[in-house]
């Protein structure tokens, strides 16, 4: 196998690996956003800026989404 072909195979393999990891990275980013959001809701409830009832509902929705993003939606 010539060096050119080997390089081509490497480039294609790297491209495939990048394409496969993209959805995983995207989901990790979403999980990080949700975690930050959950933390700020919890703080707002403890500060009294958001009512307990609304805070609980928000946290429930955000946690549900985070579980889905992590591939663990409880089903």
């Amino acid at each position, binding site marked *: 196998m010539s060096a050119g072909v080997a390089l081509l195979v490497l480039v294609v393999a790297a491209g495939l690996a990048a394409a496969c990891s993209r959805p995983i990275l*995207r989901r990790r980013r979403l999980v990080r956003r949700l975690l930050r959001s959950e933390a*700020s809701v919890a703080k*707002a409830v403890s500060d009294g800026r958001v009512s307990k009832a609304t805070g609980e509902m928000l946290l429930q929705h955000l946690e549900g*989404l985070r579980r889905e*993003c992590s591939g663990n939606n409880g089903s």
Partner: protein
Amino acid sequence: MRIGVDAGRALHGYGGVASYSRQLANALARHAPEHDLVIFDLDRGIHRREVFEKTLGPLPSNVQTAQGSELELARLDLFHAPGFVLPPPGAPHHVVTVHDLTVLSHPEYHTLENRVRTMVAVAGALTRGATIISDSRATRAEAVRLLSMSGESLEVLPPMLDPRFNPAGNDELDEAALHKLGVDAPFCLAVGSLEPRKNLGRLLDAWELLPAGVRDEHLLVVVASAGWLQRELRSRLSDIERDGSVRLLTRIGGLDLAALYRRARVVVFPSLAEGFGLPVAEAMACGAPVVTSNVSSMPEVAGGAAVLVDPEDADAIADGVARVLERTELRRDLRERGPEQALQFSAEAVVPRLLEIYQRTVER
């Protein structure tokens, strides 16, 4: 007041939120000259005035454009975020429009990314103590039901319509617009992005249920912007388009859309869930007879000036369309009542109420 508004979606977006943002910036610029308006693009940070003017038209002298630095935000009295994008902290007060909560009531119609983006924005708005505006009483009821919010903490204010959506138009220009779009037969019109919630698949089912004579005489024109989760619908539309009875139009500007509304025999909007349902209001403003859904916010927007049908029933949609097409008297009545109902969505009617909300917010 020194009011900041994010008009980023007006520059880069499509569909209802883009239209809302465009009209919000435009209406405040033109109908609230006593206030200073600063327009931002939170999506891409564009701040050159001429870029905004390409979309919004020439801006009056009380309007500035800015990049969104902390310093610029701190000089504002309040910031209005109309597109589910919150500014960095800085402004002393925030107003956030929550257009709908269908990510919670109908998660199956949304991508996971949509749902996360929307819920993070809603949570951000609430934790900042923002004033929340919902586009309709239906959306307010959803917020009470799904987020345990108190109804009093939510303001209800409809979107504003582009003034180009009016019943008068200009016959010559409308004719030229239709000619350019290749629409010459009498036609029924459907408007909406290609996403499951808009129910275009069932509309196509209903179209096939109409008597052959009606279908032979009319074209179905579908004006659609890009959406999601609709690969099957796209291929079905392409197949039907090939046989000539349905015409799919994309990237339609406001003037052309207004011409389509004015010339349509009927506008059909059988959406399954909306926060408002802008095409219903736009069509009525243009004097088009409308058939829309009897659920969610649509009866509220129609205000008795449209035919309401069960959007989950293709027979009911077909029956509603056939009734309007076959009964001249009903068509005439809807054409008269629609523009009257739509007056409440004009900038003249909405801006004073919006300024009252701003005032209450800064006084809190």
